[in-house]
């Protein structure tokens, strides 16, 4: 039951020529016009087509409208209401959800006798609804398109009906020409149109047919209308497997067909024999054969083997379509519509090898993108540094994580085991810039960090000393000093950092260690005069400049000096200090690892780092020009910050092995992930200041957050193991903990401890006390259960020390102890010696000689142990603070009341 249409189709088809498919006279109604999809696409369609949409519908939305550049499109509750308002239309476009599509068609057909076209954009319309809609439209003389299509477009008429053919800039793709385009894929309709322009071909009418079981406007109807369209000289048809739509096609004009999808046959399962009759036999191979038979060719067209006839060519790659069209049309005596536009060769718009050396065929250079994309990229390139999207960072971090499998934590994707091989100063820089400094970087970092360690005569030291004398723990002592390191203390240096950033951010300089002509920057620097020049006398500046110049070359350091020279020699220490940190952060900024904000904050972190190390020593260790007896003139230019920290903390020079052990120790403590109390403390402090306005975040307060979230149980507990070792080694005559010829029978000592512990444990169990004391630093909740257990982190450190020939009696004792515990049947297997033991034994070894000689008391060991923890953890917490400041949200660490519980 169908109306009589054009041609001799066994069904209704009303389109005689492609020129009638999308015309200036078509008037359109859009159902569900205010839906998400339509409200984005419809305004562009309306504007491109000269305002052809008369109204839209949306139940309950009468009175609303959709804004377009061509005017407001009114919205009615229903088609009836729109018609009653005096509108007339012949085309309905449907954006309804699948269950409503059939009803939309029924409504449009029933209400509007003038309806001639219906276009369904909706995906996943059921087959049942498709066949019913087809029957309705057939009976009423309506041409149906889709579903799951992108509609129709005509480059000659400058009209698109339905969906988003040509995207948000239809003119870019819909270029007037002589190719009629029919595609099962909506995306490929546009993509093929763009590809065609590279061979100089434009389009007449483009049809996105959809690829549901029912293709309502199929290839046969398209070719019929193509033959009757004088504008169209050649057809391009893109077909996918499934359906007999292309079987037995014919046309008076040439066709280039593209069939893709041979592999897809593997993904579908035939259903019984009915599939063979109605469904299969229509796979890609079959379709290729249909076209080849029609074209009279015996193969597929490829640029390497162009097979084609006057009737056309078959390709299986859309990139080959433009060339095939040109070849076929050449045979038909037709030239392209216009000069080719661009090419389809590989052009990389963005790329980064990340330092890898790729083989030449893969190392495709990044080239300038075509207009207007090149302008957009250029605009983005002006966005210097990383642009972080803010997110809730409660219990989350972009800086650290702990691998639950290995229990090894990572900072900026670097395992703490690897970090422990780096120097203290390298890790301090890395925490903030996410890039390890080079040798030169470490040298200038040492200068910047050393120059502010001496706290003599400073209020910071006075505050710390007062706190210390009143019985506070090391973390509390340090907090009181850090509170004084407010922003004003480093404002000048931060201003200088920002000035350097402003001057150099759009320059082509990627590596400040290389020569760079900054004549332009020198000319424009006057507006930053206040930041870059000293206010008055600055005695340190020249000395610092000399040290920096002898360390190597930095564009920023040189620039600051040259600018000062050009301005009466007012060289500024703050500006040089800023130049150092800008040098250290530049690579990270250029590779978008850090933001501009981070770069500007680096001097503040530096001052806090130096202060924390400085005030951890008692006041008497400082004089105006020395620390622990080392002259500043010697220390600042020559000491690594690792050595400075050791000397400041312990008041003496380290031996070579002690220096190495100290460095490893600091690395191992860096982080245990964002869940640790210290990390939570500093993150909470940032969160409370509101990182969405990062300039308001008080970095020193965030460090106080970290410091106050350490304590006797977290950070100070390293002493527990030290105390245990002291208890067992005191009075045993051990003079040097590195001496392998110590003469002690560690096995016997360990056995004694194990037996005593066994007795103790039995007694406690007998009296019902299950909360008996555990031996510190043995066993681990993860590394257990095997006959002999190892903590891989401890194994790593032991290996390091072995390679360096470094011995540690206390560590050897711990290994004897775990074996003795097994022999004494305290443990069922040989426990591991865990990482906390490593930390304890390294520190105890360092202080053992002084302790043994009575120069150090037990409480001093506890303080030194705690302070060492603070040094190491300072690295990890600095990373957390900067990460949270850059990416976190205001008050994001709070716990909603609903998730809190009352346990009173």
């Amino acid at each position: 039951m169908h109306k009589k249409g054009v041609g001799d189709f066994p069904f209704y088809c009303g389109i005689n020529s492609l020129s009638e498919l999308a015309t200036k006279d078509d008037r359109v109604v859009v159902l569900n016009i205010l839906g998400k999809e339509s409200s984005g696409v419809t305004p562009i369609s309306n504007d491109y087509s000269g305002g052809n949409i008369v109204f839209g519908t949306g139940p309950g939305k009468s009175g609303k409208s959709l804004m377009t550049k061509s005017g407001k499109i009114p919205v009615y509750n229903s088609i009836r209401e729109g018609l009653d308002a005096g509108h007339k239309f012949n085309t309905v476009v449907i954006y309804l959800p699948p269950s409503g599509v059939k009803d939309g068609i029924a409504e449009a057909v029933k209400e509007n006798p003038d309806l001639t076209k219906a276009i369904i954009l909706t995906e996943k319309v059921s087959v049942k609804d498709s066949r019913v809609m087809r029957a309705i439209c057939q009976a009423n003389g309506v041409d149906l398109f889709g579903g799951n299509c992108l509609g129709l477009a005509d480059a000659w008429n400058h009209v698109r009906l339905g969906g988003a053919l040509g995207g948000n800039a239809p003119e870019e793709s819909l270029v007037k020409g002589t190719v009629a385009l029919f595609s099962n894929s909506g995306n490929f309709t546009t993509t093929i149109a763009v590809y065609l322009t590279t061979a100089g071909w434009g389009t007449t009418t483009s049809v996105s047919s959809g690829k549901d079981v029912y293709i309502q406007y199929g290839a046969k109807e398209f070719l019929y209308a193509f033959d009757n369209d004088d504008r169209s000289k050649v057809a391009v048809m893109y077909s996918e497997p499934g359906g007999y739509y292309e079987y037995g096609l014919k046309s008076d004009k040439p066709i280039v067909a593209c069939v893709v999808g041979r592999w897809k046959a593997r993904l579908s399962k035939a259903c019984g024999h009915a599939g063979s009759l109605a469904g299969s036999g229509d796979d890609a191979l079959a379709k290729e054969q249909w076209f080849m038979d029609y074209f009279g060719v015996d193969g597929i067209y490829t640029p390497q083997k162009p097979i084609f006839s006057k009737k056309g060519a078959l390709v299986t790659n859309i990139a080959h379509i433009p060339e095939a069209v040109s070849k076929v049309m050449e045979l038909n005596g037709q030239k392209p519509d216009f000069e080719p536009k661009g090419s389809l060769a590989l052009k990389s718009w963005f790329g980064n090898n990340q330092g890898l050396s790729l083989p030449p065929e893969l190392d495709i250079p990044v080239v300038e993108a075509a207009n207007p994309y090149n302008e957009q990229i250029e605009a983005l390139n002006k966005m210097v540094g990383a642009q972080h999207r803010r997110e809730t960072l409660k219990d989350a971090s972009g800086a650290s994580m702990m691998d639950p499998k290995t229990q090894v934590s990572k900072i900026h994707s670097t395992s703490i085991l690897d970090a422990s091989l780096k120097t203290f100063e390298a890790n301090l820089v890395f925490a903030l810039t996410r890039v390890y400094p080079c040798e030169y970087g470490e040298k200038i970092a040492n200068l910047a960090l050393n120059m502010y360690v001496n706290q003599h005569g400073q209020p910071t030291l006075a505050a710390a000393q007062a706190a210390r004398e009143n019985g506070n723990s090391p973390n509390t002592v340090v907090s009181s000093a850090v509170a004084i390191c407010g922003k004003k203390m480093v404002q000048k240096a931060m201003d200088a950092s920002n000035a350097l950033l402003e001057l150099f951010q759009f320059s082509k300089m990627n590596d400040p260690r290389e020569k760079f002509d900054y004549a332009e920057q020198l000319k424009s620097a006057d507006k930053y005069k206040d930041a870059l020049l000293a206010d008055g006398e600055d005695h340190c500046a020249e000395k610092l400049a000399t040290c920096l110049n002898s360390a190597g070359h930095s564009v920023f350091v040189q620039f600051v000096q040259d600018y000062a020279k050009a301005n009466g020699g007012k060289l500024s220490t703050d500006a040089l200090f800023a130049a150092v940190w800008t040098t250290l952060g530049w690579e990270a900024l250029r590779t978008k690892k850090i933001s501009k904000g981070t770069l500007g904050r680096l001097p503040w972190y530096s001052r806090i780092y130096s202060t924390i190390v400085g005030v951890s020593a008692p006041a008497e260790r400082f004089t105006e020009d020395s620390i622990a007896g080392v002259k500043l003139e010697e220390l600042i230019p020559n000491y690594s910050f690792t050595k400075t920290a050791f000397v400041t903390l312990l008041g003496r020079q380290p031996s070579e092995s002690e220096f190495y052990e100290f460095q490893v120790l600091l690395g191992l403590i860096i982080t245990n992930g964002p869940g640790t109390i210290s990390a939570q403390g500093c993150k909470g402090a940032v969160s409370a200041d509101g990182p969405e306005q990062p300039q308001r975040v008080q970095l020193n307060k965030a460090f106080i957050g970290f410091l106050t979230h350490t304590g006797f149980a977290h950070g100070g507990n390293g002493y527990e193991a030290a105390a245990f070792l002291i208890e067992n080694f005191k009075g045993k005559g051990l003079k040097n903990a590195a001496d392998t010829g110590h003469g002690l029978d560690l096995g016997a000592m360990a056995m004694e401890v194990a037996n005593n512990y066994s007795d103790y444990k039995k007694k406690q169990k007998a009296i019902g006390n299950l909360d008996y004391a555990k031996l510190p630093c043995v066993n681990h909740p993860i590394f257990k259960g095997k006959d002999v257990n190892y903590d891989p982190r401890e194994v790593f450190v032991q290996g390091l020390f072995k390679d360096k020939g470094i011995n540690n009696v206390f560590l050897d004792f711990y290994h004897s102890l775990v074996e003795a515990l097994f022999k004494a049947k305290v443990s069922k297997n040989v426990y591991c010696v865990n990482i906390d033991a490593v930390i304890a034994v390294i520190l105890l070894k360092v202080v053992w000689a002084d302790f043994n000689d009575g120069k150090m008391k037990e409480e001093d060991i506890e303080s030194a142990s705690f302070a060492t923890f603070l040094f190491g953890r300072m690295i990890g917490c600095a990373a957390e603070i900067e990460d949270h400041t850059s990416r976190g949200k205001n008050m994001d660490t709070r716990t909603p009341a609903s998730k809190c519980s009352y346990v009173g």
Partner: protein
Amino acid sequence: MQITGMLWGRKLLDLVEFPHSEVRGPELSVDEIKDMIKRHGQIFIKPLFKGGVGKKGKAGLMGRVDNITDALKEKERLYFAEHVDGFNKVKSDGVTYEGGVPADFEVYFSISESTEHRCPIMTITHHGGVDIEELGEDKLKVVPFDALTGLKAFHVSNALMELGAPTALISPLVQNLPKLWDLYNNYGMLMLELNPIRMQSGKGGRLAPVACDFKCAFDQDDPAWKRLNLPSHLFASDYSEFEQEINQLRTYQGQSDVFVMNDKGTITAPTFGGGANAMVTELLGEEATISSDFGGNPPYVKMNDISRISFKYWLPQSNVLFIIGGKANNTDIYETFRAMGDGLREFFQTHGPIPLFVVVGRGGPNVIRGMNYLQEILDSLGIPYRFFGHDSAMSEVINYALAVNEWMKNGGKDEIKAKLKI
């Protein structure tokens, strides 16, 4: 979504009161099998497959027995029988026992959708019980009919007369076959096939149709099949664990039509658009882990969910993350790239870094913003990448991804591992 066999087929046939043979499931005891043989003279033992199995006519997947010894032998042979049809391999889990129906005529009948006629069609022949496509055209009848009015008695009657079917067949088939349209039309089917329907002689010699095998396919986009309350495990074998998880996101907006291509593949390619999907699937072949079409302008949350699930399953084994599509018409590239980029970062945060190379080929609205966002994430993760716009031939971009994959297999992966300190 397909059903094969009578165990479940009979339940559907009961809905429209279409006669069928006695069918029992794998739970049958030896005594019960003996009893069935006694009552029917012979029984058919068939493997029990879940989901679609394709054609199985000549595969020897049926035992015809008239004694318990043979019955038990056939049970053992068929209980875990494997069947290969094309690229698909299925394994049975149990057998059905179906009472033999003595008959002189076997009828083939199906309803399906015809892309040639663009309406539903009935296919019928009284030369049934064989591979139907091997019959001559004059021996079967394909009848298109109106979707609004459905399959009518006269369609069946005319077809059988034109085929020259014995008159005794016509009346019982005309009475019973149109019922099957109700089953087909009301429960969202795409195909319904009964082969054979055996014409059993009843009282007074009158023939009655008895369905002896059943196959149907449901339209996933038609919720009507849910009214049947079929157990979900029936279709579970059609989908992998990954497909099942991602299919939960399936809505009419698309974006979650995903298939596993090769569970040992090394290129994971989130693909946008049906055309791109066909092309990418074609050119990547066995190298690809999944075949996907995430086009249709997915919102951020959905795309992020899809990425999260896809990455969880496939990234650990992948060398290349290949994001590919043509020049999008409507899909917001910024939103989709942001969702995938965040998904990738989340993967690295949760599972730790893996050696990966990212290749992108894409165009469309907000493409530069999208690429820039993804670029920043990749830079922060230290992953090498190349992004191509829509003005690079998609096939060339695919070839580039394949070349990267080869390089990764031959040492590139180790180089990235070393760089990422994995």
